[in-house]
């Protein structure tokens, strides 16, 4: 028996073509010993969740910079429920005002990181929360 690294899907949704932030996070998680599945740009919520399910991911990190976060984040939460994948830890990042962030957390997004959040905080969050999911499902 061997320890399987945590598996995290890092996705970009919507129509903005900026994925530098997502790539920085992906690399930081990789360097922290995790397996990061990168899906590329312009993913729909359905594509993102389908990917996470097939990859048996412990977490999904979604980056949105286009301002469409109030539509896209809730759609991912909805898809996760619809596919019986509510155990996957869903977190996000982007230029998201505090009020919106609070509403998204209330909807079930587990954490929102805004630009400037220390990478170490993100890594620590993922390790601890996704680690709990892993401990549950094995």
């Amino acid at each position, binding site marked *: *028996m*061997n*320890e*399987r*690294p945590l598996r995290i899907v890092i996705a970009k949704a919507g129509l903005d073509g900026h994925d530098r932030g997502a790539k920085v996070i*992906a*690399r930081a*998680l*990789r*360097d*922290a*010993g*995790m*397996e*990061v*599945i*990168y*899906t*590329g740009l*312009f*993913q*729909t919520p*359905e*594509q993102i969740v*389908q*990917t996470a*399910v*097939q*990859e*048996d991911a412990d977490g999904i990190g979604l980056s949105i910079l286009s301002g469409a976060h109030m539509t896209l984040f809730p759609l991912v939460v909805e898809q996760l429920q619809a596919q019986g994948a509510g155990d996957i830890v869903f977190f996000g990042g982007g230029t998201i005002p505090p009020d919106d962030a609070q509403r998204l957390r209330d909807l079930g997004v587990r954490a929102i990181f805004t630009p400037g959040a220390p990478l170490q905080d993100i890594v620590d969050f993922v390790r601890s929360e996704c680690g709990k999911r892993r401990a549950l*499902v*094995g």
Partner: protein
Amino acid sequence: MARAISWSESGRGGDLIRALYAKTGRAMTLGLTGPPGVGKSTLASGLVRKARSLGKRVGVVSVDPSSPFSHGALLGDRIRLAEHFTDECVFIRSMASRGHLGGLAGATADAVLLMDAFGFDVVLIETVGVGQSEVAIAELAHTVLVALQPGSGDSIQVLKAGIMEIADVFVVNKADHPMADQLRREIRSTMEMLQWDGWVPELVVTQALAGTGIDELWSAVERHVAYLNETGEMEMRRRDAFTHQVRQLALGRLEQRLNRAIRDGARDGVDPYEAAERILASLPKF
């Protein structure tokens, strides 16, 4: 199935594979190898499209390297397969090589068996693009596609490095490149220097990004599968794959026992040869 593959990845897949093994043996397994960036994932996407147009269910296993330092990995093969993400008849799984040599991960063979048992008609396996050591794919896939690209020294290295022998079909991808024809000629002349008995590898020119040449590639694969079936070589390939996995599993167990014995064994004042003899003597006989 997603969970089942994870069990195999953590070394707990044995029971399920045992239970499902009788259901395997129906899928056509295609290996896709070649140097980094030649277009393996893009070709995979085209082949999935083709297989889907024929009504087949398709599984894809894509292996990318793990970092030897952090043991983490960036798995990016999916990017090229996005058009198939929501197709219920396509299942894509990314795998990290986790230190396995030979371009495949330890659990790749299990993932292929699982997809086969779950009724996928075609299973595509994309290896790590390391260029020279992906020969393990020949033990797993019925048909091996070796993709090469024009204007790259990597591809010429591949031709020199014994990959010729495992190719059932050569793919010259990026046909839009001005040196594509030159590479095609180079492969031809390298092939002429070798002796072939039985199947002579086909050579197909593609432009995966535009979807050009995929139909021809699929036809070449079908001809190879027909050849395997007609000559009885299919049975041989299946047996080879079986033997290979048995070897891998047994070696893995043996290595664990050996490591334990080495760790626990006394080594003070003993030379390495003597220590090795003692450890072997202490292992249970077969």
